[in-house]
C-alpha cells in the first residue's frame, strides 16, 4: 500500500471493491454447490421459494453494503490522509524554516513538534521525537522513497494500531532530511468498524426479511394447492360432497372447476354404485329369507319326510347355507368397495375380545396371549374383528386341517394376532394372491371341503384394512402357514364422547368413520414396521415375506 507522491486512485478501496462482488458471489454459490438434484428433490416448493428470496436479499443487501462500506471507507481515509499529509508537510516546512534560521533540525524537532510522534533521519542518523517512535517503525520502502526526495505515506500496523506514516523530504543544514510523522488512525478505523457492523447487521436483517417474505409469499401461493389437497383427502376419507369454493382464486378457476367436476362425477358414480348395491342387496335378501325360512320349516319336520326326500333336503340345506354365505360375502365385499361399511368402533380389551371370538368360532386349540398383551385396549368393530378371526380359523379348518395355535403379541402401537396351522403351507408365490377374491391357492382348489366361498380371505384383508391394520401370511416354522393380522393398539382416549366406547357409531356415524379412517381400497404397500430379520420361520419375528398390505395405518389415531 505504498503510494506515490501524487495521490492516485485508492488502491485499497479498489481491491476491496473487487472483493465485494466476490463475497456475494461466494454466498451465491453456496447453495448451488450443494448437490443440485438432491436439493431439488428434498426441498419443497415453499422451501425453495423461501431460499431463493433469502439468497436474493442476501446478494442484494451484501452488494449494497459492500459498496457503501468501501466508498465510505475510501473517502474517509482519503480525507484523513489529505489533511494529515498537509499537517506533516506544514511541520516539515516549519522544521525547514527553523533549520534555515540556523537552528539544528533535531532541536527544532523537539521544539516544534510538541506531542506529535515523529522521527527524522539525517545523514543516516535517526532522531525520534519521543521514545514511542523508533526507527523500525518506518518501513524500508517508504524510507527509500522519501530519501529519494519523494513525498510518501503508508498505512502500517503498529502494536495493533493503524498508524499513518507520512514522510516528507526537505533540505536542511547538515544534509537532506527525511521527516516522518506518525498519525494514529484508530478513530477512523473505529468509525469504519462501527459502519461495517451496522452494514452486516442490515444485510442479515434484509436476508431474514427476504426469507420471511418468501415464505409468506410461497404459503400464500400454495394455499389453493393445500386446499385442493385437503379437499381430495376429505373425499378419499368418505366426505364425497366436499367441493372447492369456485370463486376464491380467479386465476385457478380452471383447476377448481375441473376438481369439482371430477368430484361430482365421482360422487355420482359412487352413489349409483351404492344404490345398485343396495338394490341388489334387497332383491337378493328377500328371496333368500323366504328360502331359508321355508327350509327351516322343512328341517324341523325332517323326521316326517321319506328317506330320499330327507336326503334331498340335506343337500338343499347345505347348498342354501353356502349360497347364503356367498351372498353375504358378496354383499359384504361390495359394501366394503362402495365405502358403505361404517365402522362401529368400540374400545375393547384385546384378551377377552379374542377369547370370546375364538369361543364363538368354536376354536379349541392353543391360545397364547401374554397377560401384558391381553390387557391392551384396541379400537375395533367387534363384529368385523370376529369376522376376521372366524374367517382365518375357518380357512385353516378348510384347507390346513384346522388351526393349532392362536397367539397375540404387541409391538409398540401394534397388536399382532397370528393363526397358525400345520397344513401344507402357502407357497411364496401365492402369499399375496391368496388374499384376492375367489383365489383359493393350489391347496384350495380341492373343492372337497365344500362350502368355501373363495371370499373369506379377501374379506379378512378388507376388514383388517378398515380396522386400520393389515394381514399377511408367512410360513409357520417348517410346516404350515401362519396368518398374521396386525391392528393398531389404542392409546388412552379423551373424555369428550357421550357413549362408553370411543367411536360409537350409534351416536354419530360420521365420527365413527373418522375414528377409523376409511382409506381408498388401494393395495399399496406401506413401509413395514416389522424388523427386517431373515425369516427363519421358526422365529417369532414377524417379517412378512409376501405381505399383503391392506392399509396404511392412520397417520394419527385419535
Amino acid at each position, binding site marked *: 500500500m505504498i503510494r506515490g507522491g501524487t495521490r492516485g486512485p485508492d488502491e485499497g478501496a479498489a481491491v476491496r471493491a473487487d472483493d465485494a462482488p466476490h463475497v456475494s458471489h461466494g454466498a451465491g454459490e453456496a447453495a448451488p454447490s450443494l448437490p443440485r438434484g438432491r436439493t431439488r428433490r428434498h426441498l419443497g416448493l415453499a422451501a425453495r421459494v423461501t431460499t431463493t428470496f433469502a439468497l436474493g436479499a442476501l446478494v442484494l443487501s451484501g452488494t449494497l453494503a459492500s459498496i457503501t462500506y468501501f466508498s465510505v471507507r475510501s473517502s474517509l481515509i482519503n480525507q484523513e490522509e489529505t489533511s494529515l499529509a498537509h499537517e506533516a508537510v506544514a511541520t516539515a516546512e516549519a522544521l525547514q524554516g527553523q533549520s534555515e534560521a540556523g537552528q539544528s533540525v533535531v532541536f527544532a524537532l523537539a521544539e516544534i513538534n510538541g506531542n506529535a510522534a515523529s522521527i527524522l533521519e539525517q545523514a543516516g542518523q535517526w532522531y525520534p521525537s519521543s521514545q514511542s517512535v523508533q526507527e523500525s517503525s518506518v518501513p524500508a520502502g517508504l524510507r527509500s522513497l522519501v530519501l529519494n526526495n519523494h513525498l510518501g505515506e503508508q498505512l502500517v500496523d503498529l502494536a495493533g494500531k493503524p498508524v499513518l506514516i507520512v514522510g516528507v523530504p526537505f533540505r536542511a543544514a547538515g544534509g537532506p532530511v527525511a521527516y516522518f510523522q506518525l498519525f494514529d488512525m484508530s478513530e477512523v478505523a473505529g468509525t469504519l468498524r462501527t459502519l461495517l457492523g451496522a452494514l452486516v447487521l442490515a444485510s442479515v436483517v434484509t436476508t431474514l426479511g427476504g426469507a420471511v417474505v418468501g415464505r409468506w409469499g410461497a404459503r400464500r401461493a400454495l394455499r389453493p394447492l393445500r386446499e385442493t389437497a385437503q379437499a381430495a383427502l376429505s373425499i378419499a376419507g368418505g366426505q364425497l360432497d366436499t367441493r372447492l369454493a369456485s370463486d376464491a382464486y380467479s386465476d385457478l378457476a380452471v383447476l377448481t372447476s375441473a376438481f369439482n367436476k371430477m368430484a361430482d362425477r365421482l360422487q355420482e358414480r359412487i352413489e349409483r354404485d351404492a344404490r345398485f348395491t343396495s338394490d341388489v342387496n334387497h332383491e337378493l335378501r328377500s328371496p333368500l329369507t323366504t328360502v331359508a325360512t321355508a327350509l327351516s320349516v322343512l328341517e324341523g319336520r325332517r323326521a316326517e319326510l321319506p328317506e330320499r326326500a330327507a336326503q334331498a333336503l340335506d343337500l338343499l340345506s347345505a347348498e342354501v347355507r353356502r349360497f347364503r354365505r356367498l351372498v353375504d360375502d358378496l354383499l359384504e365385499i361390495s359394501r366394503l368397495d362402495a365405502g358403505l361399511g361404517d365402522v362401529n368402533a368400540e*374400545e375393547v380389551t384385546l384378551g377377552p375380545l379374542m377369547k370370546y371370538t375364538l369361543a364363538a368360532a368354536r376354536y379349541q386349540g392353543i391360545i397364547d396371549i401374554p397377560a401384558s398383551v391381553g390387557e391392551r385396549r384396541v379400537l375395533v368393530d367387534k363384529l368385523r374383528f370376529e369376522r376376521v378371526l372366524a374367517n382365518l380359523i375357518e380357512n385353516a379348518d378348510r384347507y390346513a386341517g384346522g388351526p393349532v395355535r392362536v397367539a397375540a403379541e404387541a409391538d409398540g402401537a401394534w397388536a399382532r394376532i397370528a393363526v397358525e396351522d400345520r397344513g401344507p403351507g402357502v407357497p411364496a408365490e401365492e402369499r399375496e394372491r391368496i388374499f384376492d377374491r375367489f383365489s383359493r391357492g393350489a391347496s384350495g382348489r380341492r373343492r372337497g371341503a365344500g362350502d368355501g366361498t373363495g371370499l373369506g380371505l379377501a374379506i379378512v384383508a378388507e376388514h383388517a384394512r378398515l380396522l386400520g391394520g393389515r394381514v399377511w401370511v408367512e410360513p409357520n416354522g417348517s410346516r404350515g402357514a401362519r396368518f398374521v393380522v396386525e391392528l393398531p393398539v389404542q392409546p388412552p382416549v379423551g373424555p369428550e364422547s357421550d357413549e362408553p366406547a370411543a367411536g360409537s357409531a350409534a351416536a354419530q356415524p360420521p365420527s365413527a368413520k373418522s375414528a377409523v379412517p376409511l382409506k381408498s381400497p388401494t393395495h399399496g404397500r406401506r413401509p413395514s414396521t416389522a424388523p427386517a430379520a431373515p425369516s427363519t420361520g421358526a422365529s417369532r419375528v414377524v417379517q412378512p415375506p409376501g405381505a399383503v398390505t391392506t392399509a396404511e395405518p392412520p397417520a394419527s389415531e385419535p
Partner: protein
Amino acid sequence: MASRILLVEDDERIRTSMRLSLEDEGYDVEETESGEDALEAHARSLVGQSFDLIVVDIMLPGMDGFAACRELRKVSSVPIIMVTALTDTAHIVAGLEAGADDYVTKPFEPKELAARIRALLRRARTTDDGPVSLVFGDLEILPEAGEVRKEGQEVHLTRTEFLLLCELAANAGKVLSREQLLERVWSYDYFGDGRLVDVHVRRLRTKVENDPSDPRHVLTVRGLGYKLAP
C-alpha cells in the same frame, strides 16, 4: 297358552314362510301386510288377547316400519323386533329410536329370529324378586309393580327400558359394560350389537332425566359402560 305374535311383512312369501316357521315354534301368529293394518290389528287385539310381541318389517309400502313402531309405542310397550334388509348404522339406529327393542337383518337365520323372540318373551314374563322400591333422588323404581316414578309422577317406559333401568339400579353405582347389559337385558352374547344399549340408554334418558344431554342418573363411563348414580 301360546304367545301371540303379530307379524307385519308386505312380501307374501316371506310372511307365509315366517308364519309357518313361527307356528312350528309354537306361537300363535297373526299376519298383516302393512303398517296401517298392524295398528288396526293391535287396536283390535286390546279388546281380546293382546299381542305378546310384534315383528315388523321396516320396508313397508305406505306407512313404513319406523312410523308403525312410533305409532305402536304411543299406545303400547309391547316388545317389537324389527326386520330389515339394510344393515347400516343410520338405518338400524333409526329403527331403535322409533321404539324397536331388537332387530334382525334379512336374510336372518330362522333360528336366530326364534332366539330373539324367545329372549324378549321370557324377559317379559320375568318377575323380579328384588326389593319393593328403589329410590334414586327424584326417581323411584318399583320393580315388582313394573313402575317408575319421577317426582311422584309415573313415567311410561317400554319393557326394555324398564329392565335396563332395573339392571342398572340393581347394580347402583357400579359400572355395567355394554356386553353385560346386552347379556342381561337382551340375552345376547359378547357379540351383541352395542348400539342397542346406546340407543335404549338415550331413550331412557329422555324419560327419566330432567336434561337428557346432561344426565344425572344414567351416566356414561367412558370406555367402560354405563352406571346409575345413586
